[in-house]
């Protein structure tokens, strides 16, 4: 009996269990179906998004491709254009450089052509400075070991400076540049003509007197006249020699000149006639009634030409130190004939020196590019020394770069050896080197560059090119090295 119960119980339990299991299964199945549907939905959605993304990506890639290939094409085109432009610009630059160089040479040639005093100076100085600066750059010896020209531009800079160093001379009056004798000036020949009238005037008087005095002792008069004439001729010779300014004039000579100058003559003609306004104003500064007793030579107010305008402030701003004379010119006859050395007065000398002032002012006005910015400096220091005695800035050694020192030597050597100047006999090579050596000893020129100039043989090379055969003699350079 209990076995039966037990079995039924077990059967019920099993049935229940089965039932439970079957409901759970149904539910599970249902749930699983639902999930499946949801998943499919999501997958579909994902698929759509995915496709859209892929589409967008594909489109983007296509776009990106297009953008890049277009950009490459554009870049290549721009590159080609740039290359073409570069070629054009380079050619233009080259032709402009040529034009500029020709202009510079034209100016240098014009300065040379303007005055026979300078001859071929501006064209020849660059030859010398180029030779010497290259030598200094190549030298491995002190003090040039550190000095190296880095580029063509640096060479060009000094070449241009050398060509233009005297460009200020275009502003120097020719009669000062070419003033070959002490009494030389721009001259109104009315004075000469008037003097001849004076002579004829006297001759007429003398003739009348001679007729009147017909009865006097002839030999006594002749002897006297001979002495007087001889004295006059001698005095004229002294004056004439002094006028050339060949040698230094001592104080005794000046005294003698003053004595000669004190001779008098009587002027019967009005010396204010035939003059232009400016000169007339000056002549009227002195009384002019006739007859007047005049000195043979004199310093008069009319001989002073006043400085009308001078910008001292600008002069200082540029760093120019050379003293400016109060007057522009002094044409005084005595003053000029008594010039101690050379033919130039204090005022004339300043006018001559002013050419560097003008060179500097002119060159500093030019917009030189960065690689040529030293042109005004090099050109402007060709008359400076190493000890502050030069002009116009009175520079010293520390202000003088090697190219500037090179220019100074080239300038002097060309001037010394030139054979195309009418006012002087050409010097021999040895005499020129000797003068150069004095200047180097006095630190007016750089002693090391002077030695390099000799030891390198540049002096000889230049002489062969530019000096006359009769100027070239043997130079014993060992005494200078």
């Amino acid at each position: 009996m209990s076995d039966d119960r037990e079995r039924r119980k077990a059967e019920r339990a099993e049935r229940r269990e089965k039932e439970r299991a079957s409901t759970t299964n149904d539910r599970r199945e249902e749930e699983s179906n639902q999930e499946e549907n949801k998943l499919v939905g999501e997958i579909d959605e994902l698929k759509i998004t995915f496709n859209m993304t892929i589409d967008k990506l594909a489109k983007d890639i296509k776009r990106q491709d297009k953008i890049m290939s277009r950009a490459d094409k554009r870049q290549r085109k721009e590159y080609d254009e740039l290359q073409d432009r570069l070629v054009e610009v380079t050619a233009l630059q080259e032709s402009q450089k040529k034009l500029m160089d020709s202009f510079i040479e034209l100016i240098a040639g014009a300065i040379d052509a303007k005055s026979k005093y300078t001859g071929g100076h501006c064209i020849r100085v660059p030859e010398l400075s180029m030779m010497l600066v290259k030598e200094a750059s190549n030298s491995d010896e002190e003090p040039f070991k550190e000095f190296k020209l880095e580029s063509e531009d640096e060479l060009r800079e000094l070449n241009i400076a050398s060509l233009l160093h005297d460009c200020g001379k275009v502003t120097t009056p020719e009669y000062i540049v070419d003033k070959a004798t002490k009494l030389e000036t721009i001259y109104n020949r009315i004075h000469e003509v008037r003097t001849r009238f004076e002579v004829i005037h006297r001759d007429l008087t003398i003739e009348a007197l001679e007729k009147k005095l017909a009865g006097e002792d002839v030999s006594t008069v002749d002897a006297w006249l001979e002495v007087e004439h001889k004295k006059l001729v001698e005095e004229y010779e002294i004056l004439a020699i002094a006028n050339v300014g060949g040698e230094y004039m001592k104080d005794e000579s000046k005294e003698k000149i003053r004595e000669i100058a004190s001779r008098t003559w009587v002027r019967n003609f009005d010396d204010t006639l035939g003059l232009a306004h400016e000169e007339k104003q000056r002549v009227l500064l002195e009384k002019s009634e006739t007859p007047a007793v005049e000195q043979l030579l004199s310093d008069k107010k009319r001989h002073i030409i006043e400085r009308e305008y001078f910008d001292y402030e600008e002069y200082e701003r540029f760093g120019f130190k050379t003293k400016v004379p109060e007057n522009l010119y002094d044409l005084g006859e005595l003053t000029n004939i008594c010039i101690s050395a050379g033919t130039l007065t204090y005022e004339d000398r300043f006018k001559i020196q002013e050419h560097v002032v003008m060179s500097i002012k002119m060159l500093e006005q030019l917009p030189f590019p960065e690689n040529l910015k030293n042109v005004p400096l090099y050109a402007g220091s060709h008359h400076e020394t190493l000890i502050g005695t030069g002009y116009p800035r009175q520079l010293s050694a520390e202000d003088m770069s090697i190219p500037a020192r090179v220019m100074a030597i080239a300038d002097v050597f060309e001037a010394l050896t030139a054979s195309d100047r009418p006012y002087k006999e050409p010097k021999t090579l040895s005499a020129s080197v000797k003068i150069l050596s004095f200047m180097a000893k006095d630190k007016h020129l750089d002693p090391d560059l002077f030695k390099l100039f000799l030891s390198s043989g540049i002096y000889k090379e230049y002489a062969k090119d530019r000096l006359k055969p009769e100027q070239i003699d043997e130079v014993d350079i060992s005494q200078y090295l």
Partner: protein
Amino acid sequence: MENLNFEATKYTPEIKLDATSGIISLVGKSYPENTFEFYKPMMEWLENYFEENAQDVTTVNMEIIYFNSSSSKLFFDFFDLLDEAKDDNTIKINWIYDEENESAEEAGEDFVEDFEDLDIELVTK
């Protein structure tokens, strides 16, 4: 809505966004250092404009002479934005270029090809 103006620089175009007249213009070169940063204010302004401030007719005048690749990428985005806005707005686009400027012409043709539904006109100067 405020108008937005950018002056041209060496590397960026002049940009004039005028909400009152509905005229949008870009003129010049486009080589910004950071293109997306540079055009961000313009893009934001445009979104804002089309959302609620658009005029009946919006005219876009583009005269871009030279441009880098990130700029052309940005211009595609710009046209995408216009493409989205075109259903609710009337948009007229003028792509202006110099006859000699082949690159600008080609870029214009690319935009026409990619955005068939936009009213883009290529205008030579």
